[in-house]
C-alpha cells in the first residue's frame, strides 16, 4: 500500500518539479512535509481514487500520510 502511495505522491511531486522521494513516513504532513498545495492535494485525491477507488477526502479531512493509509485500509 505504501509503495503505490509513494509512486502516486512522486508523480504529483515530479509534475510540479519537486524531487522524487525514496520513502514515505506515516507522520509526514501532506502540506508541510510533502510540499503540496490545494491543487496538488486535489490531484492526489484523483490519482488515489483512480488506483484504489476511494475518495480520501469524501468523509472528513486528511492531513498526514497515515490519515491516507487509514482511509485506504477501510
Amino acid at each position, binding site marked *: 500500500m505504501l509503495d503505490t502511495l509513494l509512486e502516486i505522491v512522486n508523480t504529483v511531486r*515530479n*509534475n510540479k*518539479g519537486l524531487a522524487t522521494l525514496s520513502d514515505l513516513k506515516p507522520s509526514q504532513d501532506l*502540506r*508541510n512535509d510533502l510540499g503540496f*498545495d*490545494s*491543487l496538488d*492535494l*486535489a*490531484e492526489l*485525491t*484523483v*490519482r488515489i481514487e483512480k488506483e484504489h477507488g476511494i*475518495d480520501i*477526502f*469524501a468523509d*472528513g*479531512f486528511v*492531513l498526514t500520510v497515515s490519515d491516507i493509509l487509514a482511509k485506504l485500509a477501510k
Partner: protein
Amino acid sequence: MPDKIFLHDYKTGKRYSYNQLLADLNALSNLERYCYKQDLYTIFLTIIAANLHQIALVLLDADFSYEELQKFQINATMLAEKEHVVPPSINSVDELVGRLIVNKDWELTLFTSGTTGLPKSVTHTFKSLTRAVRISSRHAGDVWGFAYNPTHIAGLQVFYQALLNGNTLINLFSAARHTVLDFITSFQITNISATPTFYRLLFPLTELYPSVKRLTSGGEKFDGALSEKLLDFFPNAKLRNIYASTEAGTMLEGVGDIFVLNDENCYRIVENELYVHRSLLGKGDTTSLEDDEWYPTGDLVELIQEDPKKFRFLQRKNEMINVGGYKVNPLEVEENICIHHAVKQAYVYGKPNILLGNIIIADIVSDAGITEKELRDFLQSRLQPYKIPRIMNFVSFIELTRSGKLKRT
C-alpha cells in the same frame, strides 16, 4: 493617531502601519499605469496612489505569463510607462479616505476569463468597485483576514472595505493552514471573506475562534454542510453568502443558498438565466448586452418563490469551470495545449472534486510520445497555474459532435 497596522504579510514577514502607508504615498511622484507585481503591499500602494491621483490603472495577475500579456497587447514598454504626479501631503487616514472617495469616476481595469478563450478586460469605476462597501464607525475595529487574490474583484472589494474604514488587513491568501489559524487568534481577526475551498482547507479544526464576527463565502457554489461545520468552531460568527462577478462586482447577498431578487430594475430572470442591468456593470465590453440593456450572467437559477422572487443558483450555462473560486475557460486551455507540436487534439473538462469544486482534466490525442510532465512544463510558461490540467489522459480519439465541435456534456 496611534500607529495602527495597515497590513501584515506572512509572505515577506513584514508589517506596515498606516503611518508608513501615508509616508510612502506622500513620497510617490511617478505612478505606473500597469500594476504587474508580486508583493501585496506594493500592489495596494500602487492601487491607492492611482486612485488618489485619478490615474487609470490596469491590474495584472503576477502569474500572468509573457504569452498571456502579449495576447492582451501589453508589452514591456507599456509596463514601464510612468506618469509624473505632484506628491500629496496627506496627514491622516481620514484625509486619505476623504480624498479617495471623491474620485468616483477613477478607472481600474482587471482581467477575467472570457467566454471565447481569451481573458477579457473589465473596467470598473471607483463607484462600481465600492458599491458594496459600507463605511461606518461600527466597522472601525474590524480586522480583516485577506484571503483572495488582490488583483481579482473579490480581493479588491475586501481591500476597499478595510481601507475605507481604516482597518487592519492580515494576508491569508495562499497561506498554509496553520498560519491562517495562528493569525486568526494572534491578530484577533474579526472578518474573513473567502471561497468555500479556502474554508474547506482549514479543516480539521480543533479549537474555537471566538474573535471572528463575520464569515463571508463567495466565488463558488454555496456549501451548506461546510457552513454548519464552520459555525461549530466560529461560535460568534454570522455567515453570509455573496453572489458577485468580475463584470458587476458584488450583487446579491443570500441566506444560505437562497437569494431574494428585490429590485427588478436591476435583475431579472429569463429562461432560468440571471440577467443584470447595465447600470450595475463596470464599463468595458458591451457587446454581450441584450437590447443594449441587460447582461446575461451565464448563471442558471431555479426560481423557488414568485412574490417576492426567491431563487438559488444551479450551474453555469457556459462551459466555464470553477476551480476553487477561479473560473477556467476550457477553450483557452485546449488552445494552449494544441500549440504543442506533439498534440493533435485536446479536450479539457472539469471533474467534480470535494476540495476544489472541480479539477481540470485533459484528454489528449498525440502520436509523438509526449509525457504528461513534458506537457505540464510546456503549459507552465503559457498559463496561470490553476488553468493547467492536473490529470492528462492520452487517448486514441476524441468524440466530435456533428458540427465538428468537441462534444461537451
